[in-house]
């Protein structure tokens, strides 16, 4: 099993380690609900160094990225900042979702999921070569996410950041981005493992709670963020995954992988929506949902620590009423459909 450089820390600090796509990662450090609530109300840190960091060298990186992804990288050329995009195959199927970072001077970095690392590495290398770009996988990368309303206050002893959302700060060996996967104000700190250890120790010395991947999942669900492998797979396209906003066709002349398929498709008969129920029990992924005139399936479902009810996403036919039904342990459960961003919708 693969381990991040913080593995020993997790073990010594009550981290319950599990196999996460071949990586031994902390699922919680005692209570995922307490960890979740700390991020919503205060601050917490996550070791997400299992995710894959790719740096690109030389060549025409702008043209490479314009062709690689459906979102348009020219949006972020004016400053050092980050862009979210799915990665598509020629058929428009989603291979992964990525954050693309403009490091300045038309140089870029991509962070992708860990389970798709080998696939992406091969894919990037092949496409990048056509643009004279070398792909460098950073094997000793540290990624620390500091998330919660007190993030900027807690990091101020190390870095005095005045960053807008999605913008980057950089010094010699550290990149800090105002990004995250929790729906809270937060940053993600990318460096090598040595520097990462220094930053991690500093934040732990300030009594900041480490947060496991279980809380990361409930935090992202409440914020309406898709999880690759659950809410979208290669069988889905951006239109049926609530990602229309990442398909940028403003530059008609730009070609990108999957464009023809998406133009033919135009839209999907299905969409990804949120659901919640006040009834007891937790509907989970794979459960069928039905309603007047349509049906579908839950892609992610959990108990929301913030709203204290069962929430989740489901992929259903595009015209749907306000409510639907599902079955949990032989009992009929009434569902309310809503936007996927529960933090906005249920507050």
């Amino acid at each position, binding site marked *: 099993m693969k381990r991040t450089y913080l593995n020993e820390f997790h073990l010594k600090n009550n981290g*319950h380690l599990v196999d996460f796509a071949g990586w031994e990662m902390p699922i919680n450090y005692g209570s995922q609900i307490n960890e979740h609530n700390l991020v919503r109300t205060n601050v917490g840190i996550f070791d997400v160094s299992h995710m894959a960091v790719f740096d690109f060298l030389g060549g025409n990186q702008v043209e490479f990225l314009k062709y690689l992804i459906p979102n348009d990288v020219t949006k972020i050329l004016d400053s050092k900042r980050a862009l979210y995009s799915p990665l598509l195959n020629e058929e428009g199927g989603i291979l992964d979702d990525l954050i693309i970072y403009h490091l300045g001077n038309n140089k870029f970095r991509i962070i992708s999921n860990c389970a798709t690392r080998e696939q992406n590495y091969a894919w990037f290398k092949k496409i990048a070569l056509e643009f004279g770009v070398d792909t460098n996988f950073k094997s000793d990368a540290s990624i620390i996410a500091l998330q919660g309303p007190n993030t900027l206050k807690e990091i101020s002893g190390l870095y005095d950041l005045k960053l807008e959302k999605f913008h980057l700060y950089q010094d010699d060996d550290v990149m800090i981005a105002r990004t995250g996967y929790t729906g809270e104000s937060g940053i993600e700190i990318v460096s090598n493992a040595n520097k990462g250890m220094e930053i991690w120790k500093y934040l732990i010395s300030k009594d900041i709670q480490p947060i496991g991947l279980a809380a990361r999942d409930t935090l992202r669900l409440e914020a309406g963020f898709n999880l690759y492998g659950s809410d979208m797979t290669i069988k889905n396209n951006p239109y049926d995954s609530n990602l229309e906003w990442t398909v940028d066709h403003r530059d008609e002349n730009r070609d990108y992988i999957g464009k023809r398929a998406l133009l033919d498709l135009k839209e999907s008969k299905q969409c990804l929506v949120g659901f919640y129920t006040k009834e007891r*029990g937790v509907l989970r992924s794979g459960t069928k949902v039905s309603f007047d005139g349509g049906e579908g399936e839950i892609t992610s479902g959990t*108990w929301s620590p913030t709203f204290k009810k069962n929430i989740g996403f489901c992929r259903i036919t595009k015209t749907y009423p306000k409510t639907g039904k599902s079955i949990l342990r032989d009992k009929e459960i009434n569902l309310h459909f809503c936007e996927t961003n529960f933090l906005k919708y249920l507050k």
Partner: protein
Amino acid sequence: MAEVPSNLKFLESHEWARLEEDGTVTVGISDHAQELLGDIVFVELPDIGKEVTQSGDTAIVESVKAASDVYSPLSGEITEINETLIDNPEIINTSPYDSGWFFKIKPQDINEMDKLLDAKAYESASES
């Protein structure tokens, strides 16, 4: 390390049974089980008066992570349920052997207790 009290008997599926002075048997889930499940958010308890069988599914415990059946360590009749758990299921996480008990049974055949694991046997079964 999860706690395993020596005065209790266990099913391999992580339920504990405690024989009370009045002859009833109190049932709950082990410390190890609550650790595996993580934060518990719902329970479904049996009706009082229900007849249950040894190793038959009797209750449901659901955490943020997963739902799991709770099996009865003995055959008999449900005489009492811990209603506090319905609104405060997190008690199972903090006190699995005490305030986090699930239900009480009037056993049909107390000799069934002999088929259960003692603390030592359960400890080694749950470690493997």
